[in-house]
């Protein structure tokens, strides 16, 4: 791709690695077979039948013994790294370390920081920070509107020149249709995907959870799912009218999936993402008023959850995104209605979805891998591929490893994970990003021995 770089990370030494007898699983490369894989100079160099490649002196060998699975590393188009301004929750270093631990080789950071990422100087300083601190490559989505106020466009063209992947007011909707239309039109000049947090604030009001039987029983103000779905329908139509490229963030309900499906059937240039928590949890999990279950959009009903799974399976929803949203312990140790919205998700995404959807027979593993890697292409970035000559962006996974989320703490600075305490199966043992080893699980030495 010509033009400025759009992903930024610290350089890591190029990996020299022999992975012997691992199951290589890459649905895009149409491979699912036991192989020896050699990584030389940070690139995938060689494939061979298991047990046939001999270790060289200058490379590390990891013996899979047929029990470890090698997949393309995941890509998360929606994380909150909290830099600048909220480094007590997370920073670029800790957030990307958490991502690497989850098997991700790329993430896209949201702009709702303090100050908001809405100017080129700030973007330049974040790029610099990422080049020094980011363990895996990070892309940035600056704000659509200045200060996320929904009133004035940011200098989108300059921001694109400085490496913006696209734009988002995530955390807030672009409430005014007229304002959003201007951004969609301006996209013809500057390019870049417009990623939308969909919420009609006159419907969501002061709601703290999904509207339904649980909110009625708890006496907590509810957010109706139509607060999201009516905005998805509106903005899909606007994108169609302006022939703009729009990505819908963290879809949470059946009606939104229908609206996206409808828009795609028209040929409009739309895509969508869904989070692991919306695929695995429902508002019944809020009954305990555990603040880790409070996020935006809120956990919805079982019918909505099933529609999201169906949408992910059919491809109406293109990819998984964690919406990793760290908050400090004391910020979450308050009554439910007072707590900030958000759950962390990078370190548990694959294991939770593998446990909840693959092992229970709801979706197949290759499809999960596809949906956890598809986010990159949506933002015009190359997709990780397991093929000779490709840079090593890989996740080495023990699909049989059972662990309790959080039992050994977290790489993230925050611990507000909605899956904490759950038994999960499947653990990322090693992650390679941009040719370097960026994560190594403590269990790896035992497996490799």
């Amino acid at each position, binding site marked *: 791709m010509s033009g400025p770089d759009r992903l930024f990370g610290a350089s890591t030494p190029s990996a020299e690695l022999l992975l012997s007898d691992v199951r290589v699983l890459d649905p895009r490369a149409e491979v699912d077979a036991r192989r020896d894989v050699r990584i030389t100079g940070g690139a995938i160099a060689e494939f061979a039948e298991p047990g046939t490649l001999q270790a060289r002196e200058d490379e590390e060998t990891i013996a899979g013994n047929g029990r470890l699975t090698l997949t393309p590393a995941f890509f998360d188009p929606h994380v909150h790294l909290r830099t600048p301004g909220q480094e007590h929750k997370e920073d670029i270093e800790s957030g990307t370390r958490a991502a690497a631990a989850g098997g991700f080789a790329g993430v896209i950071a949201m702009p709702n920081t303090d100050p908001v990422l809405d100017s080129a100087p700030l973007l330049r300083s974040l790029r610099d920070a990422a080049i020094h601190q980011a363990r895996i490559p990070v892309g940035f989505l600056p704000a659509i509107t200045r200060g996320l106020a929904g009133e004035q466009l940011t200098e989108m063209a300059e921001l694109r020149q400085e490496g913006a992947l696209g734009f988002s007011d995530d955390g807030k909707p672009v409430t005014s249709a007229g304002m959003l239309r201007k951004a969609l039109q301006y996209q013809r000049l500057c390019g870049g995907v417009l990623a939308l947090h969909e919420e009609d604030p006159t419907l969501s009001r002061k709601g703290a959870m999904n509207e339904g039987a649980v909110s009625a029983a708890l006496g907590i103000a509810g957010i109706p799912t139509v607060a999201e779905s009516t905005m998805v329908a509106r903005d899909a139509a606007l994108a169609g009218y302006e022939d703009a490229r729009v990505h819908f963030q963290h879809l949470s309900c059946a009606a939104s999936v229908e609206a996206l499906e409808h828009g795609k059937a028209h040929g409009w240039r739309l895509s969508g993402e869904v989070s692991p928590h919306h695929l695995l949890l429902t508002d019944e999990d809020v009954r305990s008023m555990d603040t880790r279950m409070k996020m935006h959009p809120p956990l919805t009903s079982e019918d909505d959850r099933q529609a999201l799974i169906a949408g992910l399976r059919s491809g109406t929803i293109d990819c998984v995104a964690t919406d990793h949203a760290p908050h400090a312990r004391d910020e979450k140790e308050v*009554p439910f209605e007072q707590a900030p919205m958000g759950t962390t998700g990078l370190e548990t995404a694959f294991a939770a979805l593998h446990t909840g959807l693959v092992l229970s027979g709801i979706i197949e593993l290759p499809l999960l891998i596809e949906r956890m890697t598809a986010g990159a292409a949506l933002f015009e970035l190359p997709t990780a591929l397991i093929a000779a000559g490709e840079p090593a962006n890989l996740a080495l996974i023990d699909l049989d490893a059972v662990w309790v989320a959080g039992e050994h703490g977290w790489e993230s600075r925050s611990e507000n994970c909605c899956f904490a305490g759950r038994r999960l199966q499947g653990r990322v043992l090693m992650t390679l990003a941009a040719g370097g080893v960026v994560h190594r699980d403590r269990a790896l030495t035992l497996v490799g021995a």
Partner: protein
Amino acid sequence: MNHLLSIEDLDREAIERIIAQAERFSEVSDREIKKVPALRGRMVLNLFYEASTRTRSSFELAAKRLSADVVNFAASGSSVEKGESLKDTVLTLSAHKPDAIVLRTPWAGAAELVSKWCSAAIVNAGDGKHEHPTQALLDVYTLRRRLGQIDGASIWIVGDVAHSRVARSNVLAFQRMGAKVTIAGPPTLIPRGIEQLGCEVRYTLDELPSADIVYALRMQHERMSETWVPSMREYAAWYQINARRLTARQILMHPGPVNRGVELSGEVVDSPQAVITAQVEAGVVVRMAVLYELLAGAREPRPAADRPADRSTMAETSVLGGSPSR
């Protein structure tokens, strides 16, 4: 029973036990010296984050009649206004080693949360729009005194259900005691999904004559940040309980304080059907029974359950998901 957090935690037997104890305490109220030494040396802390005169004084009176020491801590004018968190306030006050904390907050679930932070018995005196269990218990007590049993009785709860913690606790408590509950009010003030508590929902008072008991809720002006009904005048026209709507055989209840001319007309407040002052009276004896139930048996200091430090490594729950897709 370690805490009173929600009516959901009480089965019928527990409610009967508290009511029977309240009956016994009601004799105390009629004595010349209205005091028993049951909780002498115990400390009850009233921690109120919302303005409340009647509930707080009712608890205070109840504790004093049991000879407990009472400390009142109002959030206004205190460290809370300087930004202290609920947790820090509770931990600070816990240093005084209260045996019970009576807690009112504007936040659902706060009482349950506090019960995990300290070793005192927690009495929920209202948590946001969630629950107000002692109100429900005193309402059951009032009805039992008046009617004997309420099994099979039809109880209509009328008005602003959405903003009412009383409504939620009472739907649960009345149903536990065998009554059939209908809630009625303007559609904007009936939360979607409330029928899953097991009650009927009506948007008019057309069938109100079928009710044995009419429980009017206060229109919560102070809780309403926006317009839910076109006007108080229109609300009164459709939902006010007045002499035209209330029949002679019905019992009228209200948790107070009454907005005369809004949810109730003046004449029904003063009618023989109204048991509103009996409810206030019942408040003291029922709260005595609750405090007695929580504190009289407990001699050992309670272990502080579920310390926050354990939260990230909470006992493992089941494997995720598991339900097959459709």
